């Protein structure tokens, strides 16, 4: 008689499951790599940037790429590569709190609208529609003109205009889940509204929100860059991709490198987060898993 052992497949955690599916999707893997590179370089900026991003060296101004300055220098001799890396920090500093804030308020308002009485739903939807009726850039320009440009103003403006996007998604999902039989059963067992919302509805809306957030990050980063390009975002000398684009635009006939240096990270951010978001959507939605998501 021989011993036989039955080997059961190891159960993966939910995060492991997501990662497993992400790396099997070529676009998802590419997105993940790009996002990790951008986030990693931003977090490690003080250690990996070769120069102080605001240190001037006017005699070395407007240099092209060379061994000392991988992406050349700007009009006052600052190292462009270092400014690109530090610019990533500004992009994340804007994107993360903005998206997080929009998700928190969107969740709260969306769940109240979706679960609450009809009149409250109508009121909140009206609020969402009102906020959405302002074109983000115009709204941002108006606020900045009133209170002056700063990173916090940019975060506030983009967050406020993003809340309705998340709120509407949460509201729709909440209304759908509210009709489910298990919710009816819970209610009949005497479950409280906070319990239903916290234990049953919240986990079911987080997945789609994560996908939406991933897809929104490039938009927010682009908005920050746009406002900084117009001089309404970060204050000088803070490095920002938008500031690089602005300097590059002003000097485009002298050197193309500033505009290239400001443009590449924006393109990579858009591609990376879009790939990642689409792959995440495929993973989160079981109906799409393994079908390429299309």
């Amino acid at each position, binding site marked *: 008689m021989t011993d036989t052992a039955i080997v059961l497949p190891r159960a993966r955690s939910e995060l492991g499951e997501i990662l497993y599916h992400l790396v099997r999707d070529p676009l998802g893997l590419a997105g993940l790599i790009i996002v990790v590179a951008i986030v990693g370089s931003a977090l490690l900026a003080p250690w990996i940037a070769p120069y102080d991003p605001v240190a*001037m060296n006017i*005699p070395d101004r407007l240099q092209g790429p060379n061994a000392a300055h991988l992406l050349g220098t700007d*009009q006052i001799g600052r190292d462009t590569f270092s400014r690109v890396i530090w610019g990533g920090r500004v992009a994340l500093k804007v994107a993360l709190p903005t998206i997080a804030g929009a998700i928190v308020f969107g969740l709260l308002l969306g769940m109240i609208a979706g679960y609450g009485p009809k009149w409250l739903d109508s009121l909140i939807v009206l609020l969402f529609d009102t906020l959405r009726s302002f074109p983000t850039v115009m709204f941002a320009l108006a606020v900045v003109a009133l209170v002056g*440009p700063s990173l916090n103003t940019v975060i506030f403006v983009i967050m406020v205009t993003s809340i309705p996007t998340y709120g509407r998604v949460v509201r729709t999902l909440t209304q759908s889940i509210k009709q489910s039989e298990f919710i009816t059963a819970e209610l009949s067992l005497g479950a409280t509204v906070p319990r239903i919302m916290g234990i049953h509805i919240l986990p079911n809306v987080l997945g789609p929100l994560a996908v939406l957030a991933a897809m929104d990050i490039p938009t927010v980063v682009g908005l920050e860059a746009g406002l900084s390009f*117009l*001089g309404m975002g970060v*204050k*000088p000398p803070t490095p920002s991709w938008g500031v690089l684009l602005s300097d590059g635009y002003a000097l485009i*006939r002298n050197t193309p490198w500033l505009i290239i240096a400001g443009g590449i990270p924006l393109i990579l951010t858009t591609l990376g987060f879009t790939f990642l978001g689409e792959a995440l959507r495929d993973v989160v939605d079981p109906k799409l898993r393994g079908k390429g998501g299309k």
Partner: protein
Amino acid sequence: MTSQNITWSRVGLPRRAFLKGATALGLASVAGLSLPRGARAEGGTLKTRTYADIRSMDPAFSQGVVDEEIHAAIYNKLIQYKPGREWGWQLDAAAMVEQADDTHINFALRDDIGFTGGFGAMTAEDVKFSFERIIDDALESTNKPDWGPLDHVEVTGERTGTIVLKNAFQPLWNITLPYIAGNIVSKAAFEQAGGKIDTQPVATSGPYLHAGWEPKQKTTLKRNPDWKGEAPAYDEIQIFHIDDEKAAEIAFEAGEIDFTRVSLDSVERLKSAPIEGATLDEYPSLYYAWVGMNLDNPKLANIKLRQAIQYAIDVPSIMAGAYFGAAEPSTGIIAPGLAGHREASMTGAAADLEKAQALMAESGETNVSLTMDILNKSANVTAAQIIQANLAAIGITLEIKLNEGATFWELGSNEGLELVLNRFSMTPDPYYATSWFIAEQAGIWNWERFRNEEFDQLHIAAQSEADQAKRAEMYVRMQNLMEESGAYKFITHESTPVIYRNTVAPALRPDGLPLYRYFGAA
């Protein structure tokens, strides 16, 4: 334009006036004040560019250079600026003009100038109307200050008269008669139009006619067929509104325009890689840029702190980084070539860090944090960052606040203003520069709220000082007072680089601004 025919009667000048006129012309020739160069009627179209749209075709409400470039071509003045590298004037509508005494200027008009629209010959009544309407409080002309102490114009004949001043006014010859306030309009046409006009001229008299205006697009000038003076060079001049200098440079390279000012950061590139068939010329500018400090702000009350800032700012670095080496540091608000220009500033152009640090220590100020307002333009942002780094070297944290045009130009009334990087336009008389810094202007254009009794007295005295050497001394002293207050660090007068096709013979003021009526074909 309803009709472009001119009808007027020829009336000979009184003999005495003719002799004076001839004398003036003769003197002008001797002094090298040559006749207008646009004496060739080659024809064709000149395409050029302006950085802003027109605001008014009424000289009483002209907003400056942009309007005046057109006014100077379609209207006449007694005298016009002379194209060239040195400031001077030449006769225009006047056959003669002379300063009889400190307060009286006699003039005689040419007899061959008439207004379009059937409004007849230009007469001394038209001159009287044109000048006196600007000082009439009821009209509320924005250009009233340009006429200084004008009392009235006395008409002594159909084409002769006397400008009577309340007191002597030296800027008259430099900025009043040959510039905005000196344009002569038709009394009959303006009265018919209700006393003032907006963007559509009612009757003109210059070598070119205002043939069309497409808002934010272009203004078209056409040769005036009834112009009896020397024929202008072009059949048509199209002045395109191109705000952005880079866009203008691209338009020039694409052959869309024949003449434009170019940005300072393009000079180096255009010198190293010249555009075929084009010439780049650099002219000194009269503009003046400076860092101002609000004396009424308690944060800047300590003079040692202000002096430390003056010595910490390194102007040569700003010239290299923000102006690409195409401009020179300035010594004050009065540019080289004008009376009162200082050879050197008191604090020097280059930073003296040791002195700045010593002054900072003397001031007893620590953890100083200031804000500097700037207009959101590329060169300003770069200059501000250099200043930020300069001040950081003496322990001052400087926050840069970017402002759009409308917000920035309202800052003068902001009592909380701290530092400001500012830039004013200028005309070729020092009076124009100092007039913004008198006590009366505090909180209006005097953003530093600089108040100095001696300065104000000198400003008034210098207006009427006929001795040019003494007058220059006065303006030097006034700039010294400004600098001694610690409220000013002078940066630059910038420069005016222009590019034009070799088929064009541009006629420019010494500060590089175009005088289209004198443009010719090369």
